[in-house]
């Protein structure tokens, strides 16, 4: 499946073998996305009427009224958010079912030792655009959240290949013994949590994160690369613990090295 994707990428930009992330970096997002749709008849069929497949105009989707931003320098890698996500949606705890993925390299160097990967609720949701059966959709009744109806999903994995993020934010799960795609719904549908989710509601990952490293925002973050999403959520209280992201930063208060009375 990864090979299909590479072939498409190459076709979209023959001079440079693009990674999924490059679609966002180059600013050629729309062109690349259109090229992908043109190359995929099934996906083209699912494109919204407002943006006919192959047209040079941007595919327009009503913007989501909610987004998750996060601070990958604040995350401690506890995976609580992942287990909360899995719990409220499926009633079990399983990292593989989580719609936010936290990866870490214990032997790595800060800050590259943690990668946070929640869904971006993209301006142009390629998952929605590419789904051949409309299982991935924009929920216009609920804040335009980009969702996947797993019941409708036929298991073709197109949205896994098409999500431009690395790792893809569409999540492959087993439901009733069948492989299906799923994705972050900003906690709109949480059978195991009696909280209202979605825009204006609560999100299990946000609520459970002990480091407050994930935040719900209503405004669309900058869509280029990750800067718009991976933001600084730390204040002086954080730096005062002695946790700096830059060796020139001097915490306002001596964090730990002046010991009064102790050893």
């Amino acid at each position, binding site marked *: 499946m990864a090979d299909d994707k590479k072939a498409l990428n190459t076709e979209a930009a023959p001079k440079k073998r693009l990674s999924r992330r490059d679609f966002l970096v180059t600013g050629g997002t729309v062109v690349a996305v259109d090229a992908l749709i043109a190359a995929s008849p099934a996906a083209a069929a699912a494109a919204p009427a407002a943006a006919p497949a192959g047209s040079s105009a941007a595919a327009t989707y009503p913007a989501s009224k909610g987004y998750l931003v996060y601070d990958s320098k*604040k995350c*401690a*890698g*506890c*995976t*609580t958010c992942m*287990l*909360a996500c899995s*719990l*409220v949606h499926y*009633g*079990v*705890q*399983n*990292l*593989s079912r989580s719609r936010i993925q936290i*990866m870490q*390299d*214990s*032997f*790595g*160097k*800060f800050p590259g*030792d*943690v990668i946070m*990967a929640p869904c971006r609720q993209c301006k142009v949701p390629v998952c929605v655009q590419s789904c051949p059966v409309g299982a991935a959709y924009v929920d216009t009744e609920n804040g335009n959240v980009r969702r996947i109806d797993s019941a409708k999903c036929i298991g073709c994995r197109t949205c*896994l290949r098409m999500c431009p993020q*690395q*790792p*893809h934010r569409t*999540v*492959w799960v*087993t439901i009733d013994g069948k*492989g299906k795609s799923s994705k972050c719904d900003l906690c709109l549908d949480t059978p*195991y*949590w*009696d909280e209202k989710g979605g825009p204006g509601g609560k999100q299990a990952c946000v*609520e*459970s994160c*002990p*480091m*407050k490293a994930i935040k719900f925002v209503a405004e669309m973050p900058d869509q280029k690369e990750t800067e718009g999403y991976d933001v600084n959520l730390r204040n002086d*209280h*954080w730096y*005062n*613990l*002695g946790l*700096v992201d*830059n060796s*020139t930063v*001097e915490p306002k*208060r*001596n*964090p*730990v*090295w002046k*010991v*009064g*009375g*102790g050893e």
Partner: protein
Amino acid sequence: MKGGYTGKILRVHLTTRTIGTIDTAKYEEFGGGHGIGSAVFFDLVGDQLTFEAFDPRNLIIMMASPFSGTFMPGSGRCEVQGMGPMLYPVEWFAHSNFGGRFTAQLKFAGWDGIVVEGAADEPVWINIVNDKVTIESAKGIWGMDTWDTQEEISRRVMPGLKYGEWAELARDQATTQSPAVVCCGPAGENRSRLGALLHGPGSQAALCGFGGVFGSKKLKAISAIGTGDVPIADPKAFMAARLWFRQFQWDVDNPREAERFGAGGPYALISGRPSGGNVLNRDLPLTPARATACASCPRGCRMRLATGDSNESVCAGTMVITVNGSVKFTRQGNDLMQKYGLGHWQLMPLLSYIDALHKKGILGKGKQIDTDLPLDRPGTFAYADAVMRAIAYREGVGDDLAEACARFAKKIGRYDQDVNDGTLSLAYWGTANHYDPAIEAEWGFGSLLGERDLMLHQMSNYPIHWMAWSGDPYLTAEEVSRLYTDAMVPYQGDPFMVDHSDGPTGIYSDSKVKQVAWIKHYEKFWVGAGGFCGWRWPMCITNNTADRRGATPEAEPKFWNAVTGDNRTFADYMELGHKIYTLDRSIWALQGRHRDMEVFPDYVYDKPSVGHDMTMYIDGQWQYAKGTGRTLDRAKVEDFKTRFYKFEGYNPDNGYPKRDTLEKMKLAKVADLLQKRGKLG
């Protein structure tokens, strides 16, 4: 079984190279973790006791708990059990544990635990990928340090794994995570009694020498990765409990009394603030770093640094080696200890002892114990490397040092003299003195009536000890005694349980008997069977709430019942802890434990204490007082023990569990074996 368990325990026999399973349901009555581990140990080898720790009959048992793989706060630890070659004079059936994400991955792979039997004829490692379990050749890995081992095994398990991408273990089994590997280093391979198990760069099972047991089995490592579910009996209640628990956490954006508790000193360790466990990144300019947590821990006491050194090491893992003038080389020196796989809590007293012997002119070039080690250059990286290398590879005098403190001292004929005068301060079973048994008596008694250093920092000693030492305690001695003991169900309401005076209500009192029993029961059930972190639990008080009440005893059953579907009280589970403790004591009795052995070395009784501020009830007043100059009274300690044995249902003449005690706990078969061996109380 409704929730928490996957239903099966993995059983690997290395001699016959067979792989089997044990139904978890058979052992459910023991809770999980340590409880199941003890029961499995008794069933598989109890009637063969006693034999040596390096005998292939010894077991390595790593039991997960119902909480492993869930977001139960601070439950990410893995309990390791088996006979511990570090311990002295008997290699007791013992436990050690390490943090990280090993048990979480084991559970996702579908296993409640793993039992390793026998010994391989050549080096192997165990590969667990969901329900596929294989015994693999460790060719090319045997001889590697613990860090390289883990990275190499990850590559072998998932050759296509790219950090930051999805990988499929098999069709429909996708994960972004890397395998969780636990391994021994060169020290373990060479059967060092200091051999630790390492998981990640800094998570050690430091005590008891289980690295050496791995080595004796020619077992280099166990790797686990899984993509399955951990079932939860009542998901809604569990989610509600987790969000309820937030009130007890350090609020990272707006901490309560930040000036006081966010500052340095002792509160860095006890306030629950992130990252305070690594003491090697405190000097300006600070090395950029993140706070790092074990699976599901809201505290995140560790760090990962921009330099990549001392990653995930905490406390003693950052304190054993000092390289003068360089915090960087100090971090790397401690990392070297992790890579060799040397247990920090035994290496620390051993290095002090080496230094003391060198200063006395006994150990060194051309001395009574002749060695080329550069002992005149302590505080250098070269010294640290040379000494640790000698121990890990058993080179020269390192061969004797690898026998760990007690046996090394015995070998050179100095054990009695050096231990009894405190030159080598091994307070209990060959493990190092930690908190002063004459003042913080519950720590001393809890260790002595166990099998190794207690190492449970959140027991009353720790929050009180460090709070008092801060010079700025947030509760008065009276307040903390009342609040603390309010939480100690089922003995709540007796503040004298934390009276550290040597008066009538103090360290020899019936109240102290109850406190020590409470500690052993909590240790066995909640910490041992629940996989709890001893830096997080119990939480009888906390600086993070307005009324200073902690989450204990409300949190534990709230979480346990939601996960498992049980419906029992805190006190019920504490009685289960009593049962597990009684089973452990029965195994020790089979190994030869008698009350006459449960005595401290002479120095603990004879050497006047330097004292430490603790809660004491003196002349009708609660106060923080030091107890400086106090010595433990032998007769009073013996009298304390007599009352403790009676309280627990053991025969005070010998400390053996009694038949009616065992039968009430549905441990009749244990009573039968004890009787057969003449060890029934």
